[in-house]
């Protein structure tokens, strides 16, 4: 009997082609659209509506001739992703909700449910590759450097990877678009989504103000200790940020200032010059190994944001705590972000940043 696979279909071009490829490869595929956000109902109180993305996903499933269902994971998403996002910001950290969603929703809640319902695996349209080895599956970067999404999957352990299929890792985005067109999928020319899905207007500060209210404090010059402005909430600021500071008093040489640190207790935002953003050592917790557990000390490269550079580093881990020393310059890293470690193209694992220091 062929393997039964849940194809998570967002209604975008990538997951559409991923599902199509699985069908071609002979899997027994069921398309599932995950309803992540609660949608307000109308007068009748049905609490649902015809979401455009769900409709697109359904049309692709029709075209592929596979069954299609919507799974409502909005409660889990609300609790594990949205509330966590707000709580992390309230604590002065900068979370990555897509990483969190992969960890808790797509490859946990949905995967567990799929396995329990008799499926063998979950497939998504992420750009990354799973390579089988003697010591189990390992996660690698996609061949398309520009689209590579191994970073947001760096929270998957081998157990999860062994039930995951990523059909797009060996293709480039332009190839996928072309394939979608050739297959006649209606999602072929849909634009990519970039925003956080639960903040569609991209106004994260506005979203957080709405949830956390106003929490004013001082903006302080990190060099002089002088108060040079006010803000409406520390959560509006992330280390490395330059925009939105609205400082009345420019630096004498008119060079731009950046957020170099925040202190949630004193509600202070520290600003300074770019050299103050340098990070040499990072500590992290919430370690997840995507492959075999590495030696307690190893050379690697590290990535700290979805599309940031891969920087040479040395890593040490003990009792679930990770220390990473950067051998190449890293600018601006906030606690709460995910740090992913690579051995060449292979993802070794990841952690959540706790502290950053300059030596």
């Amino acid at each position, binding site marked *: 009997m062929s393997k039964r696979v849940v194809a998570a279909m967002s209604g975008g071009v990538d997951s559409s082609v991923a599902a199509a490829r699985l069908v071609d490869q002979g899997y027994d595929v069921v398309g599932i659209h995950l309803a992540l956000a609660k949608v307000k109902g109308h007068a*009748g109180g049905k609490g649902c509506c015809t979401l455009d993305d769900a409709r697109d996903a359904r049309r692709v499933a029709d075209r592929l001739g596979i069954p299609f269902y*919507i799974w409502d994971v909005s409660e889990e998403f609300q609790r594990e992703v949205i509330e966590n996002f707000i709580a992390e910001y309230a604590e002065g950290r900068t979370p990555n909700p897509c990483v969190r969603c992969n960890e808790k929703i797509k490859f946990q809640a949905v995967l567990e449910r799929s396995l329990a319902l008799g499926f063998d695996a979950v497939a998504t349209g992420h750009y990354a590759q799973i390579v089988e080895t003697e010591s189990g599956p390992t996660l690698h970067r996609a061949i398309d450097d520009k689209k590579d999404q191994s970073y947001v999957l760096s929270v998957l352990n081998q157990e999860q990877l062994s039930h995951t299929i990523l059909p797009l890792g060996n293709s480039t985005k332009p190839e996928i678009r072309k394939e979608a067109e050739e297959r006649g999928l209606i999602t072929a020319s849909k634009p990519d989504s970039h925003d956080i899905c639960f903040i569609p207007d991209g106004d994260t500060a506005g979203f957080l103000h709405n949830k956390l209210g106003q929490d004013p404090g001082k903006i302080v010059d990190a060099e002089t200790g002088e108060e040079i402005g006010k803000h409406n909430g520390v959560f509006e600021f992330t280390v490395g940020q330059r925009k939105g500071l609205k400082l009345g008093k420019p630096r004498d040489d008119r060079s731009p200032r950046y957020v170099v640190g925040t202190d949630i207790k004193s509600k202070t935002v520290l600003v300074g010059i770019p050299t103050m953003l340098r990070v040499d050592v990072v500590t992290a917790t919430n370690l997840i190994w995507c492959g075999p557990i590495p030696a307690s000390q190893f050379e690697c490269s590290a990535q700290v944001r979805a599309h940031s550079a891969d920087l040479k580093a040395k890593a040490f881990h003990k009792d679930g705590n990770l220390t990473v020393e950067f051998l190449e310059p890293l600018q601006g890293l906030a606690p709460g972000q995910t740090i992913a470690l690579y051995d060449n193209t292979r993802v070794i694992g990841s952690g959540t940043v706790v502290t950053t220091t300059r030596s």
Partner: protein
Amino acid sequence: MTYLDHAATTPMLVESIAAMNAELAQVGNPSSLHASGRRARKVVEESRELIAAALGARPIEIIFTGGGTEANNLAVKGLFWSAQAKDKKKNRILVSAVEHHAVLDPVLWLGEHEGAIVEILPVDTQGRVLPETLRKAFEKNPHDVALVTVMWANNEVGTVQPIEELVKIAHEFKTHFHSDAVQAVGCLEVHFQNSGLDAMTVSGHKVGGPQGIGALVVKRDIELTPLLHGGGQERDVRSGTLAAPSIAGFAAAVSTAVVQRTSRANRMTSLRNDLIKRVQEQVPDVVFNGDPENRLPGNAHFSFKGCEGDALLMLLDAQGIECSTGSACSAGIPQPSHVLLAMGRDEVTARASLRFSFGSTSTPDDVDAVMQVLPAIVERAKRAGKPAVKK
């Protein structure tokens, strides 16, 4: 394939297909005055007479609509607005808690947009509106009720309402009574005049006719404010070119279904009872919903504790068995059924529900097919439960 979702839509009867096909090949707008128009008009009027005869109504009382939903909207809004036009004080609508959305939503809409006071009539644990409930609602203020609407039989749990008793109470208070009889026609004895109803909804595709055609049966002396304005084809209350082929198919279906009603209902009842008995014997933790006696012959409705209805549906679908959770919306996001909640079930139980509905093409093999896979599927769905996120 095992099709046990006849309450959603049921296959067209051969008589209906034949009548519709014959008309599809013809030309003629029933409103045209020439020979082709007259021919089409004759088909429509004969259809109207057939339907009227089958439903115990007069032909003039049949208003064709684009289906059950439109007929319900016309009844609810039309009766409310005409009551308001006569007496502004009549602004209360009494509606049962278990109505189909095609009744409930227009009522709630009138509440939100037209100043109607919506009073939801509670039901008992079997989904029935008790006569004293209606009486009490009237006695709160005997003079302000614009209309009462209570369905004849429930589409989800199959419970049949004590319609005649309820109608009598409404008439004591000189108030119009509408009933959505979409699920009842062809399954139960439905006689418009004997029921005392003032307005009644019927739909084509639930009785073996085509989709997209239905009728509101309305007493001749009742004024309805129109929803669709235009050519005024139907008593000036409903405009739009009459769909002669659909109407011909609808009439053939209604009259055939009504003639064959007793024998088909008996067959469906025995299939349904067999399914209920075997499910209760073979599946642990199952709750049977609805009135065991006064129910639609083709309806079996269960809650499988610890399962999600949509997981059961998907697993059954994969085995070629088609049924319903009874409450999916157009986007397919499962919601707990307002009907089960009104019957006092909690949200988890409401979400754990499945409806099997039998129809004219159902056979004992269908029941066997369900029983072959259902116990294992329930076990599996139980293990899947709600998606659990580790803390």
